[in-house]
């Protein structure tokens, strides 16, 4: 076996793993808050990335028939500011989505929530296509991504963008842990996800805490989309595949575990590059297969995932 090639494949998986892990993290936050999936997580992130694109495009707006760019001061913004803008847009629109749409589904059965978030996925996808067109657009790289921007390890290239994505993810997880474990809003969030009725009886404002959870998740999603827009090209469906891999990652890691999301994201990305490379009958077209099979196996063998909380109740 060619070790350099193996190492290169591992390194190639790092970037995707970081992106899957980030979006899985967003899915996990919402799952912990509501016990449900937000299937529109990817499209919300894509829309935010397009907002970032708007901030970057300068005087030639690609927005169909629009002169919105003219209304934004200082455009074009430098890339770090444009990413920050997307994250802020994600935070605000995430909270608004919870407030306007999701809160109405509180007492409705799970299937209503599945339908609505899938509806939101389709709506946002169509809206993005309507506003910006379906063609892929160049989005600048957030981290140095030139041909020489890599470390050479054992003959294989570890690109700076991969390192950047992972550093971002690690900082994100660290901040998230600090937020959840060391702050009062974090305590309120954990209380709400463990026992909502009881949390309410201790004066925790459930609506506000839920909205904060959605804001956080959408902010993280926006970051994931802007970080990956350079490598996959910015287009309305860019996060659709990512969402499926992230769902697999979150299921694998345990739906309520941030640590699980990160580990799951990496395992899914590794399976995606390694299985087609070393299992003869699985071609690149089937790279989704290992992720889906893993998801199936986890659900059959250990439904709580690798790090998830098993539902045990003492009575």
């Amino acid at each position, binding site marked *: 076996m060619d070790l350099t090639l193996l190492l290169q494949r591992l390194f190639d998986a790092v970037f995707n793993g970081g992106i899957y892990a980030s979006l899985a993290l967003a899915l996990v936050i919402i799952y912990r808050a509501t016990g449900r999936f937000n299937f529109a997580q990817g499209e919300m992130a894509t829309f935010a990335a397009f907002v970032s694109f708007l901030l970057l495009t300068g005087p030639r707006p690609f927005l169909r028939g629009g002169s919105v760019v003219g209304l934004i001061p200082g455009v074009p913004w430098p890339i770090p500011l444009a990413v920050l803008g997307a994250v802020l847009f994600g935070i605000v629109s995430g909270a608004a989505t919870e407030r306007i749409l999701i809160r109405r589904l509180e007492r409705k059965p799970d299937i209503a929530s599945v339908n609505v978030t899938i509806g939101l996925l389709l709506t946002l996808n169509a809206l993005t296509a309507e506003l910006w067109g379906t063609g892929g657009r160049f989005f600048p790289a957030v981290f140095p991504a030139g041909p020489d921007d890599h470390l050479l390890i054992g003959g294989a290239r570890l690109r700076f963008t991969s390192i950047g994505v992972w550093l971002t993810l690690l900082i994100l997880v660290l901040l998230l842990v600090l937020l959840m474990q060391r702050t009062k809003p974090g305590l309120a969030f954990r209380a709400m996800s463990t026992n909502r009725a009881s949390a309410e009886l201790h004066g925790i404002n459930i609506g506000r805490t839920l909205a904060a959870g959605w804001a956080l998740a959408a902010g993280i999603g926006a970051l994931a989309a802007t970080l990956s827009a350079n490598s996959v090209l910015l287009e309305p469906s860019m996060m659709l595949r990512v969402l499926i891999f992230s769902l697999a990652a979150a299921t694998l890691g345990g739906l309520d575990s941030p640590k699980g999301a990160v580990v799951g994201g990496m395992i899914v990305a590794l399976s995606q590059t390694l299985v087609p490379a070393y299992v003869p009958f699985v071609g690149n077209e089937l790279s989704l297969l290992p992720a889906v099979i893993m998801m199936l196996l986890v659900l059959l063998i250990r439904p709580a995932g690798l790090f998830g909380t098993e539902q045990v*109740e*003492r009575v």
Partner: protein
Amino acid sequence: MSDTILNVSDLHASYGPLSVLRGLNFEVNEGQVVVILGANGAGKTTTLRSICQMCDTEGSITLRGTDISSKGTADIIRLGVGHVPQGRGTFAELSVIDNLLIGSYTRSDDGVQADIDRWFEMFPILAERRDQLAGSLSGGEQQMLAVARALMSRPELLLLDEPSLGLAPIIVEQLFETLQRLNKEDGLTMLLVEQNANLALSMADHGYVIESGLIALEGSAQALMTDPAVQAAYLGA
């Protein structure tokens, strides 16, 4: 005549189309332990849930003269009501200490740690298990945690929903001794819902009996204890 903390008049409560309370009147005075007795399904739990606006209500509920019937649950807790719910409301996946911190969520003063120490002293078993997940505690320990957690908000009025449910008699006895101490030493006012009428009446000042959403009887705890109807229905005499 002591001050009235809680006054409930013509309280109707329902869960959607299901009407549970049909015009309840009662009050709780400062420093008192008031008990609500009644059979299963009479509306005892709903009465406590109504006070915290955890179901649809009509009628007036005033806390120290302030109408709370149109306020949100969080606001009512802030106004000084502590609620120990049926089933104990344990945050099972959180540590004992985090459970207590959630209890102090509405507070912003710096006396939280002192209060934690105080309740650890009163419930030493909680201090021993401070870093354990609350879900791993026994039923009795979880009930103590629920009381301590509710006390962390420094309530003026503590609502207790069947604290004896599912506990061994010896644990129930300990728990009620502690509750009595809180009432006598701290002057904590309590509204207690219980199936264990004997025990509840022995520590209460005043009592009400609910039957199908209406007050069927009321009186001092002593009078209720000797009332033939109460004896026959709830005291097994």
